[in-house]
């Protein structure tokens, strides 16, 4: 395995850890934190590929910067929604938000 492979393997493992958090935990804030882990994993992959390939012209690095910016926007709106939900239902557990249940 080449050096790039090892970096991509790290990204894969971090992505799956984050995915497990999103699927398994019930606290909505923790789900958002796990989403951040997944975004970080993608950023590692982007930067690694960009740094190891010829002719990428820094596209991966710049794309990682855009991902970081959009992750900041996403976490702001997500936590605002969590707080608005908490104000209405006094809980952050995802399985309590079941108004749409048939």
């Amino acid at each position, binding site marked *: *395995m080449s*050096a*790039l492979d090892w*970096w*991509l*393997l*790290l990204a*894969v493992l*971090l*992505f799956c*850890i984050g*995915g*497990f*958090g999103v*699927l*398994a935990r*019930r*606290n909505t*804030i*923790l789900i*958002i*934190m*796990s989403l*951040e*882990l997944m975004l*970080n994993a993608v*950023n*590692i992959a982007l*930067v*690694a590929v*960009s*740094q*190891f*390939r*010829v*002719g*990428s*012209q*820094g596209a991966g*690095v*710049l794309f*990682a*910067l*855009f991902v*970081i*910016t*959009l*992750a*900041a*926007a996403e*976490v*702001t*709106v997500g*936590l*605002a929604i*969590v*707080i*608005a939900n908490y104000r209405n239902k006094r809980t*952050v*557990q995802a399985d309590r938000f079941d108004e749409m249940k048939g």
Partner: protein
Amino acid sequence: MPGGDFHPFFFVVIAAWILVCGLGVVLFRKIVYSAVSMVFCFLGVAGAYALLNAELVAVIQILVYVGAISVVILFAIMLTEAQGNEYKLFFNRQSIFAAPLAVAAAVILTVFLVSAEVADVGETSVNLGLRQLSAILFNRYVFPFELVSLVLLAAMIGAIVLARGEGEKP
């Protein structure tokens, strides 16, 4: 070598740090512990960028993730969990399904990764400095750049409106 010399020792240290802290985020039962673990995980990712010779991303990672996002998340925890919500049992029904799913995804992706044989070609790859990167950002990618600033503005206004609540004066 492009992407910096590959130091196996530093890579293993950084990778172990990131993965252990990431597991901590997912597995800690108290959410404050998870948040602190997440901060350390973000620091480790910044170290990974530094190891990859991407100094700009490393600095921005520390500024945005360690500096801003962590504080926002800790504030949200303070506003919601501080009133002493009950802690659920960790091994609930979801994790019975989630754990095999995550492991299966990891195995499948790893198999693809190994079989794809991504070659790191390019002893000729130039490591772009800050000057070249900013030149590319403000020439070729200037439209996405402006669009992202618009998205940030919209997110900011949306967050204020959502978190303010009904009938409160801002």
